[in-house]
């Protein structure tokens, strides 16, 4: 069907002037909160915005995350290979993440948007814990579920006491995402995120793997591989600082490569 010039301009206008969604607005507000501090309801946390420009990503919402309580030295214990996690640590972490996730102030939104966002938050609150990626004293918990409307993800960082054991302190959610499900494949990257915590900046990659994937390695622009934690069909890898992943490789039981994807090179230095 051929359109007239006038009607095509209307098509163009509809497409390009489509307003941002409520969740996008919420993400942007949180991303800007530190810069607009004192004037908006600025939380103490910094948004861990999904930064891999995945075409399939539809929207990203973010929880207010509690500030990590540990001193910067907490990241000094970081290791490229995950630290084993015992069930008690995971359970404590799950509790901490749930307890310390503050309620988001939605009072500035209109009633319809507020209702939509509250419904989204309710979904995020009920996500199951799927992976704990612990490296020394610091760990990231991934809560995730593939839902009919898309992939929902919440990450939460906590820091263990200095003796390295449970109970953990800190916690709170740091990012949530309602992502459209990408096509199936052995290795699917949902998002990369960077967060500024009291312990310093950290960068994390999260995604989905098929059941036959037993290990995922991440190569970084700064050099050095990081072995991801893989469980329940998901993987998480994180490290202190703002270096970014260049390649992610999924291995099978026999060490064979099942999938390999390159990152987009998004290097988090745009703001400079």
């Amino acid at each position, binding site marked *: 069907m051929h359109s007239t*010039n006038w009607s095509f*301009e209307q098509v163009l206008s509809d497409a390009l002037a*489509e*307003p941002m969604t409520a969740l996008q607005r919420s993400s942007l507000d949180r991303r800007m909160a530190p810069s*607009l501090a004192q*004037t908006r309801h600025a939380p103490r946390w910094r948004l861990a915005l999904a930064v891999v420009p*995945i075409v399939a990503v539809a*929207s*990203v919402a973010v929880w207010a995350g509690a500030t990590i309580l540990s001193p910067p030295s907490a990241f000094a214990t970081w290791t490229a290979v995950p630290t084993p996690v015992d069930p008690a640590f995971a359970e404590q972490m799950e509790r901490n993440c749930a307890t310390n996730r503050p309620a988001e102030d939605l009072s500035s939104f209109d009633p319809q948007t507020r209702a939509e966002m509250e419904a989204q938050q309710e979904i995020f609150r009920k996500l199951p814990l799927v992976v704990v990626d612990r490296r020394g004293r610091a760990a990231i918990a991934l809560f995730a579920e593939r839902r009919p409307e898309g992939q929902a993800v919440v990450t939460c960082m906590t820091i263990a006491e200095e003796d390295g054991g449970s109970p953990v302190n800190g916690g709170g959610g740091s990012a949530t995402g309602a992502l459209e499900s990408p096509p199936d494949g052995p290795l699917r990257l949902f998002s990369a995120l960077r967060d500024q915590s009291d312990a310093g900046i950290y960068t994390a990659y999260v995604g989905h793997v098929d059941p036959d994937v037993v290990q995922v390695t991440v190569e970084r622009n700064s050099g050095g591989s990081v072995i991801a934690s893989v469980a329940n069909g998901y993987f998480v890898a994180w490290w202190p600082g703002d270096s970014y992943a260049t390649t992610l490789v999924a291995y099978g039981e026999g060490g064979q490569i099942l999938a390999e994807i390159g990152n987009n090179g998004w290097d988090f230095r*745009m703001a400079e």
Partner: protein
Amino acid sequence: MEAIPKLKAERAEEARDRTAADPDEQLALRARTDREAQAELYVRHHGALFRYLRARCRNDDVALELTAVSFEKALRAIGRYRSQGGGVRAWLLRIARNAATDHERRRRPLIPQWPMNSDHRSPDPGPEEMAIARDERRRVRLLLADLSELQRDAIALRYGAGLSAREIGAVIGKSEEATQKLISRAVARLKEAHDAQH
């Protein structure tokens, strides 16, 4: 030789008039020292910047991040803002344009760009018609990839940010007439591509 100082004086006077009449200009002045005014600038203009950047980059996440980056840069530079060349919105969009250009220069070939396909699910539950319309809008935005960078900029500024040809000219450094021609040619090209798909 007298013409130059006279021209400068006229421009300064025009700028003063514009500042007095335009709430945005008043806001920009206050934003040099007033956080509330900075927040108000953000509230007024974030939508235009986002829509421009989404059309330019064709990726919502990148557009969100670049919108934030642009405002951060703008707030740092607000003390240097002078009323000229299309006003506050055009100034913000020039910053956004530079941010997008910087991003594209740094960007490496993107491998995990999941293709749009029939399995693509809508993020929001809702009537099927809404999902179809949303996909159609997304498809139209993707058509901009075939335009030159300048054409894409002009279209994104016109239909995304809602600027007039004169304001767009101030952002991209072209006359109003040249900008209008640029837009007309770009629209014709997009229409051809759009019609070929349907």
